[in-house]
């Protein structure tokens, strides 16, 4: 990902266990505007990746299937048989690549269990250490007892990818610092981080490589973005990490000072998103605004199951007109990011002006975890959201709103 660093590794960290990053600091270059642009770019890339992945899976199914048919007619030990095996191997490799792209685009189904993070970080660190230059100094500080609900293999992949990125930034050795701890995220100390307030596990991976040039920083999570030489990797590692953390309602952010190494922070919610039981609410009203009828329907179904009243609207201009006229009463709003008429961020801002302190959730088409949300937005959810996911986000948004009153 980054250019090689010199033989004399700098020591960017004060001391092991010392603060690597000012807690709550948001990298100064991330203004709301640039981050929204970056988010839109990620959405477009996600859509592109999803579309390509779907078509590639069909093509690969054809290749693998026809190869399987040929096997029936070709002796396995013949030259043709061996070449067929190679063809199948190539198709399998392509399948793995597509699977990674789908992970970025968050298009797969995942099974979630309680994953002990201390063990996961220790294991992935062992793997990364084996790839690192022998003169790399590794310092780790791992808090035991933290668990998140996740797909263990996907999460390990995400963490390993970030670790690998760090070791590759230090081909001649250096210092790798890995910490795992719990932190409280709130809107005041973490302005603009698109995370709901609450307790998060924070995995920091900091290296003493050359750092990431500021111009490249907005793009490092994009799929196929790499600064490596041809053949040095496809540039999917950090995209996968981004997709995995976004799917867990977490975030991954990077901080880097040129020539002074770089630090990735992975934030994962520790309090399991409450999966509210049917009938948890009575009478609270959700305003759901989306121009996509499918999203409106599935969103409404999940929320109504919880006992919430749902006002589903597909016309953002009409919604704003109603709100300004004072005809719109709701406890929480979920607005789509990209809509004809008034886009989500602007609608969120205008709704907030009309309804003081109401929680507003921005629903975005593709991975946006870790982006800066406009100030008006309480949280960002990634579409297409499963009913229980959006229900959990609404539950937390309502709880946060309640605690502020």
């Amino acid at each position: 990902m980054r250019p090689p660093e010199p033989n004399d590794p700098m020591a960017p960290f004060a001391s092991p266990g010392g603060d690597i990053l000012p807690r709550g600091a948001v990298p100064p270059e991330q203004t709301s505007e640039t981050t929204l642009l970056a988010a839109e770019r990620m959405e477009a890339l996600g859509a592109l990746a999803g579309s390509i992945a779907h078509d590639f899976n069909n093509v690969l199914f054809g290749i693998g299937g026809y190869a399987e048919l040929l096997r029936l007619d070709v002796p396995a030990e013949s030259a043709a048989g061996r070449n067929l095996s190679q063809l199948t191997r190539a198709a399998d490799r392509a399948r793995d690549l597509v699977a990674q792209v789908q992970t970025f685009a968050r298009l797969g189904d995942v099974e979630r269990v309680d994953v002990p993070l201390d063990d996961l970080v220790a294991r992935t660190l062992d793997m990364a250490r084996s790839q690192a230059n022998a003169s790399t100094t590794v310092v780790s500080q791992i808090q035991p007892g933290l668990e998140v609900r996740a797909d263990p293999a996907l999460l390990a992949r995400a963490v390993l990818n970030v670790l690998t990125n760090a070791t590759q930034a230090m081909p001649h050795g250096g210092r790798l610092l890995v910490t795992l701890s719990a932190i409280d995220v709130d809107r005041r100390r973490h302005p603009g981080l698109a995370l709901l307030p609450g307790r998060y596990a924070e995995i920091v991976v900091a290296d003493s490589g050359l750092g990431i040039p500021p111009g490249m920083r907005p793009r490092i999570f994009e799929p196929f973005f790499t600064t490596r030489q041809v053949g040095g990797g496809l540039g999917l590692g950090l995209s996968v990490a981004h997709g995995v953390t976004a799917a867990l309602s977490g975030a991954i952010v990077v901080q880097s000072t040129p020539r002074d190494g770089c630090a990735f922070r992975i934030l994962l919610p520790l309090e399991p998103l409450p999966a509210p039981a049917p009938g948890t609410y009575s009478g609270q009203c959700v305003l759901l605004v989306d121009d996509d009828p499918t999203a409106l329907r599935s969103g409404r179904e999940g929320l109504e199951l919880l006992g919430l009243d749902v006002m589903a609207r597909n016309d953002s201009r009409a919604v704003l007109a109603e709100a300004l006229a004072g005809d719109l009463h709701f406890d929480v709003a979920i607005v789509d990011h990209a809509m004809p008429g008034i886009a989500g961020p602007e609608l969120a801002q205008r709704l907030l002006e009309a309804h003081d302190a109401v929680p507003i959730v921005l629903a975005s088409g593709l991975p946006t975890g870790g982006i800066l949300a406009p100030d008006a937005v309480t949280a960002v959810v990634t579409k297409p959201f499963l009913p229980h996911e959006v229900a959990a986000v609404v539950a937390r948004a309502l709880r946060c709103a309640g605690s502020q009153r």
Partner: protein
Amino acid sequence: MARILVIDDDEQVRDMLQQVYERNGYTVETAADGAAGLHAFRCEPADLVLTDLLMPGKEGLETIHDLLAEKTGVKIIAISGGGRLGHLCHLATAERLGADRVFAKPIDIPRLLAATAELLAG
């Protein structure tokens, strides 16, 4: 001899699956979308339907729903290449709707054949 109906909008996938199943002794009919598939099914019911989910025209979930409404006891395998344009792959939904097995493309052929044989034996 068990009869299998393959519904997929990808011509190569249809042709390949037809050959795979025929080489394994099944009788195979194919259709390029859900509407054609349902029509074929109503003309001559299959023992097992393998259907793609994301198809132009009548898509897979609706097709599964309609096939099950016929109450013939047909076995259903749903397959999908994953989502496009941000839509989740609907394999889990297909399973909830009543598909007996679901597979994400590209599918390992021996696994597909094993699942097919198991469903038709059951």
